[in-house]
């Protein structure tokens, strides 16, 4: 099976097509509702404030050519203060649609992992950047947690465990490309097909 390792090159992204299964490796960052709202309001729409410069610089480096994961994990804190992921499946991505395209462009993201797919703005940003949307298997939280080999750190823990930005190293994290950098969204295709069936069933 094809593997992808962060940081990911544009060539690798362009070679991916909607429907491909890939195994993701390397360092990625979790971020969901609070994190996306925060990045837009504090870094993208406004100049970075001095007390948040360090966080911004860290994220810039982590996300450049990198991947953000829509995930609110269950996390175990060990006696020595270190963390490990107990359960870590994807959360529904469409809630980030209003933010995602700007975040992809600003941080030079190459991939967004989540579930349920995203909309037209994100698909457009994927084509331009280029980047891809990677669909993890919703609910497969214990399985995916096993591919999280290490928790390297956490930002914005004050958002709560699910909403914090966890920096993790993954090995062979299985995902399906459902939105590629060529303008194809598997979600749009399935939606159109199912609409035809629905119309047939209720007309």
């Amino acid at each position, binding site marked *: 099976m094809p593997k992808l390792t962060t940081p990911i090159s544009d060539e690798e992204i362009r070679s991916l097509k909607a429907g491909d299964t890939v195994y993701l490796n390397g360092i990625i960052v979790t971020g969901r509702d609070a994190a996306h709202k925060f990045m837009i309001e504090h870094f993208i729409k406004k100049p970075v404030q001095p007390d948040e410069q360090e966080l911004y610089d860290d994220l810039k480096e982590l996300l450049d050519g990198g991947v953000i994961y829509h995930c609110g994990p269950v996390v175990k804190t060990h006696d020595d203060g270190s963390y490990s992921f*107990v359960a870590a499946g994807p959360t529904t991505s469409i809630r980030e649609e209003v933010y995602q395209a700007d975040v992809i462009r600003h941080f030079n993201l190459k991939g967004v992992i989540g*579930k349920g797919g995203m909309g037209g703005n994100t698909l457009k940003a994927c084509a331009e950047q280029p980047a891809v949307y990677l669909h993890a298997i919703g609910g497969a939280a214990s399985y995916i947690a096993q591919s999280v080999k290490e928790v390297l750190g956490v930002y914005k823990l004050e958002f709560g465990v*699910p909403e914090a930005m966890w920096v993790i190293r993954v090995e062979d994290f299985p995902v399906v490309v459902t939105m590629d950098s060529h303008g194809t969204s598997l*979600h749009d295709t*399935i939606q159109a097909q*199912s609409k035809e069936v*629905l119309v047939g069933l209720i007309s």
Partner: protein
Amino acid sequence: MDYKTLDLTDQFVELIRRAATQLPADMRQGLHQAKGNEAPGSAAEGALDTILLNVDIAEKNSTPICQDTGTPIFEVKYPVGVSTRKLADQIRAAAAAATKNNYLRPNAVDSLTGKNSGDNTGEDFPTMHFHEWDEDAIHVDLLLKGGGCENVSTQYKLPDGDLGAGRDLEGVRRVVLDAVYQAQGRGCGPAVLGVAIGGDRGSGYLKSKQQLFRQLDDTNPDPQLAALEERIFEEANQMGIGPMGFGGNTTALGVKIAAQHRLPASYFVSVAYMCWANRRASMDIQLGGEEVEVSYA
């Protein structure tokens, strides 16, 4: 030991652990069957493979099947004389303990401040309903309902002109199929659909959720509803949305419908969309002398 001094906190923690980490046998069987219906090598088959593997890992390691451990919904049947106030306190204590043990993710957020309480307790959290009954025993059903599928759950007010849905079972069929279409892959299907016909907006949603406690292979005692369940099940699976919305033959694993009385003016159809991780567990408590007899299912 009597019901007055009974403390079931530990038993509630174990019930939560089982619900969060062990998928019920009928759901597993449904997923296995679904896998056999998908094309070899398809994304749908791959998704079901991963799901089944995940279910095994979660049970073996006693870790949550899904990280979104959802809203815990407790339905408690209790004998005359039991204090539901005490049982509620014990359930809250158990939710906090289960969070500490990582069986539950901290999942209760203050809607005004945005602050996570950190222990799955808060205003009206967890959800609990108490029902007095004639048995000299306590029976508890627990459902963990995740947020992704809750967000695609929905309610229709019939008639619905756009869908050509009138105030009859044909209208119900139309809106439930529309709900499946609207959800696409966002509710982590294949789904179990709990449906309530009638009621008001509140009681309808509650009734629709309560249908999710039913076994996948049970038969509705009402022949009309049984036939409707069967038909919607087959038609939902013709839609091709598939596991995770990847496309495929399995969009629903089950359809469970109940009817309630309604006001003459209202005809609601409430649809509780449940993800494949239909996490339910139950326990029975009986007092035998000094011992508390407990069994889980």
